[in-house]
């Protein structure tokens, strides 16, 4: 990334952002009043305010965790604006105002013009908006009884559902960043799929019109009732120019009896420049509870962005015969750091989990897989298979594996395999003598390395993810 972009990003952050939204922000810093103000501005019911306050008070007693294999300068929590009304950023007049490098990336990813405008924050034509795909789809979902809306809307329209499930998977006291999120979360997504309903389409924040600026403390709650099934796509494959340094999101999934949830993420936030300046700290708590018998939760993630990624999408396998899956590709280049993995907590009987993690390190990036597979004493016949492979490109990067396997039941069968290797020179040589350029050869080999994970992504995502990988690794071999 050029310094020009970095300057642009920082400038926007330091001046434009703050002054433009003067009207609807609160001062920097965090105290109990700020939590109350956020709740009041969002006209939240009492239970939610109390929950936020409980979380805030708990957060005060907690210290920022530093066990992850990442380093970053201290975060000043009093120098963050915890509330700004959505759509506060000033829209750009046309695509011509968008950074040309960003546009080139969009074009190479094959994103349509309208979509490009939306992502880049260009004001979208009102007519387009009203007839957008999103609106049509929303009507179709409503007919099936599926609730899919912003978190704020859910609090207003369906407070009983929110109250029933909020914090049941990631409690307000879970960890430092989750507590912070619980206290100050701005908005997010909410989805409820009623009994026996199979959601007919991939749900995505793509289709939710007011999703553009959900802020840095996003909260997602997704519930699949008995026999329901849903596939949810988070994020978007294009680089998102977000000016917030710290992102502490929380995602909670609940799957009841025979329900199944598939949650896919492609994350490509600003990673900072080649020297490691700027970039997003992505400190996310994602957890699913396979609460019902025969329920299934599957996480798929492709992590290519952010300066620091610190996330462990986990599954609590509570229901008997429940299944948890985790498929991940994490790529680091330049000075990016990723400490990511999963937790599979086997509680119910005959539970099964699969973990496939692929880490690619290039430049001076550091990539860690950290995973925990825990089998509790009553979890008879638990089964886990874990495979984590790392690929290193260049000798200034690092790949690390920290698997924790804790078994308290003798009927469990667990297998863990990990390997680390580099791209074989013979493989590159073979491709080159067939007329492929070195860069192309690498992208081909890397795609093959990640194939098992990409197979689990919805089709259109998989294609883009592959291209994205190529772009992230550009210039790492030369």
């Amino acid at each position, binding site marked *: 990334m050029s310094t020009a972009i970095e300057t642009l990003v920082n400038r926007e952050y330091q001046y434009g952002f703050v002054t433009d939204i003067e009207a609807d922000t609160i001062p920097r810093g965090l105290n109990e009043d700020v939590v109350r103000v956020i709740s009041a501005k969002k006209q939240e019911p009492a239970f939610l305010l109390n929950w936020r306050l409980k979380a805030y008070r708990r957060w005060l007693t907690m210290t920022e965790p530093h*066990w992850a294999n990442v380093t970053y300068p201290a975060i000043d929590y009093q120098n963050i604006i915890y509330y700004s009304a959505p759509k506060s950023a000033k829209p750009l007049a046309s695509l011509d105002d968008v950074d040309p490098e960003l546009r080139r990336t969009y074009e190479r990813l094959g994103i349509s013009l309208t979509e490009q405008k939306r992502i880049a924050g260009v004001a979208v034509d009102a007519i387009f908006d009203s007839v957008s795909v999103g609106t049509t789809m929303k009507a179709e979902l409503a007919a099936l009884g599926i609730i899919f809306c912003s978190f704020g809307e859910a609090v207003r329209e369906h407070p009983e559902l929110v109250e029933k499930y909020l914090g049941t998977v990631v409690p307000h006291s879970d960890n430092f960043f989750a507590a912070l999120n619980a206290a100050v979360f701005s908005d997010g997504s909410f989805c409820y799929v009623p009994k026996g309903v199979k959601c007919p389409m991939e749900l995505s924040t793509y289709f939710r019109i007011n999703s553009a600026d959900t802020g840095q403390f996003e909260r997602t709650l997704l519930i699949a009732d008995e026999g329901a099934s849903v596939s949810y796509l988070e994020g978007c494959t294009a680089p998102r120019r977000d000016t917030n340094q710290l992102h502490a999101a929380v995602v909670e999934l609940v799957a009841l009896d025979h329900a199944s949830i598939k949650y896919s993420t492609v994350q490509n936030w600003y990673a900072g420049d080649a020297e490691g300046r700027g970039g997003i700290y992505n400190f996310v708590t994602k957890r699913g509870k396979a609460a019902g018998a025969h329920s299934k939760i599957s996480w798929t993630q492709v992590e290519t962005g952010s300066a620091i990624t610190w996330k462990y999408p986990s599954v609590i396998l509570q229901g008997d015969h429940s299944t948890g899956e985790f498929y991940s590709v994490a790529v680091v280049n330049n000075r990016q750091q990723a400490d990511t993995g999963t937790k599979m907590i086997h509680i119910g009987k005959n539970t099964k989990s699969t973990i496939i993690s692929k880490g690619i390190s290039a430049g001076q990036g550091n990539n860690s897989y950290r995973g925990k597979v825990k089998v509790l*004493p009553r979890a008879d016949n638990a089964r886990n298979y874990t495979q984590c492979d790392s690929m290193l490109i260049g000798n200034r990067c690092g790949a690390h594996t920290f*698997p924790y396997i804790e078994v*308290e039941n003798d009927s469990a*069968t667990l297998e863990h395999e*990990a390997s*680390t290797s580099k791209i074989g020179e013979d493989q590159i040589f073979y491709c080159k003598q067939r007329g492929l350029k070195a860069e192309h050869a690498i992208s081909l080999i890397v795609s093959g390395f990640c194939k098992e994970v990409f197979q689990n992504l919805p089709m259109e995502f998989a294609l883009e993810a592959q291209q994205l990988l190529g772009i992230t690794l550009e210039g790492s071999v030369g």
Partner: protein
Amino acid sequence: MSVQSYVDDWTRWAPGAGPAWLAGTRRSAIDRFAAAGFPTPRLEDWHFTSVSPIAERAFSPMDGPASGVAPDDLAPYEFGGGEHGDWTQLVFVNGRYSAALSSHGSLPHGAEVASLDTVLTDDGGAARALAERHLGTIAQTADHAFTALNTAFVGLGALVYLPADTEVARPIHLLFVTDSAADGGVTHPRTLVVLDRFARATLVESYVSLSDATYLTNAVTEIALADGASLTHIRVQRESERGYHIGTSQARQARDSRYVSFSFVAGAALSRQNIYTSLDGAGAEATLNGLYMADGTQHVDHQTRIEHIAPNCASHEVYKGILDGESHGVFNGKVYVRPEAQKTDGKQTNNNLLLSAGARIDTKPQLEIFADDVKCTHGATVGRLDESALFYLKSRGIATREARTLLTYAFAADVLEGIESDAVRDGLEGLARERFLDVPQLAAP
């Protein structure tokens, strides 16, 4: 707090304990121990092992044997040494060297296998110069409270030295025995092994008990391997079932050296083995294998660390665990590959067999890699006996109990088979059969 009781014991003992040249090392070590205290599960390296049974008790220095230990008492623990063989075997009873029980086989000219206390005070001796050069330079006291405690009380133990291009045909056996007088006591045995260029040796360290006393063994072994040197190092831990054992082996390997370590653990209520090696010179090779077998409420912890510092080094690691009763096994294998350590070949495996519903295992194989041209893999498994294998044996007319025995033994024997010394291998295979399988008549393969 028992930390203070160790400091007090040290303050009483240290001024009168020679030699003067060690005083500074001991002082800084006790300061380090006093500052750090005993490790707690809050430390990542001790996450699954609480040493509070050790920390809550104040073990005092042992006074030597209560009654005479007879040579025959040792027979079950000798693999072919002692009176019955021609091994060099040093025997330590409750920490103290016993010349009467020890025996000396033939050693090459210039070699030294001696009790550490005589070496340390031997002014002008070549062995003392060696000790002065190496003692405390390999075993780290920072972040290792037990090693710091051992170094603070350093004095008893053994020195093993082989000059360049020499070889000892028979294994050297260091036998650390405790008897009933050990109850409530602690020993800090220290072993220093120095192998000069292209020297070759097999060293067996045994920690055994003749009673069911409650005591603490806090052993440290430092190993310096010069270019091309080769050491096979077998540690056998058969402490009393009420004893506590913390054992640290730390090796430093120069160019083209070879270190083969085997950790056999069957004893102690709570034990922790730290097996560390650092591949400092190009072309060095390390093999760290082990077998741990626990039942009852035993707690068995292993931590291994292989540091690949130089290029073209290889490391292989296979640890197997058999856990029965309510026992708790812990394995943490670390492999570090530094940026300069290109062409590293590393392989680590940890297999665990759970024989009962109450048994528990926490395993954490760990890779940290900073070089790209490497081949590193690790694998870990946890499970019961293979149902289909059991079924196969039963279909051939073998009773369930026998079939289980056979398969369990096969699981253990797989890693024992790699031990090069016939006497030691046969001895340990015998122990494995007796320990769990209760069928000594099963012929060794």
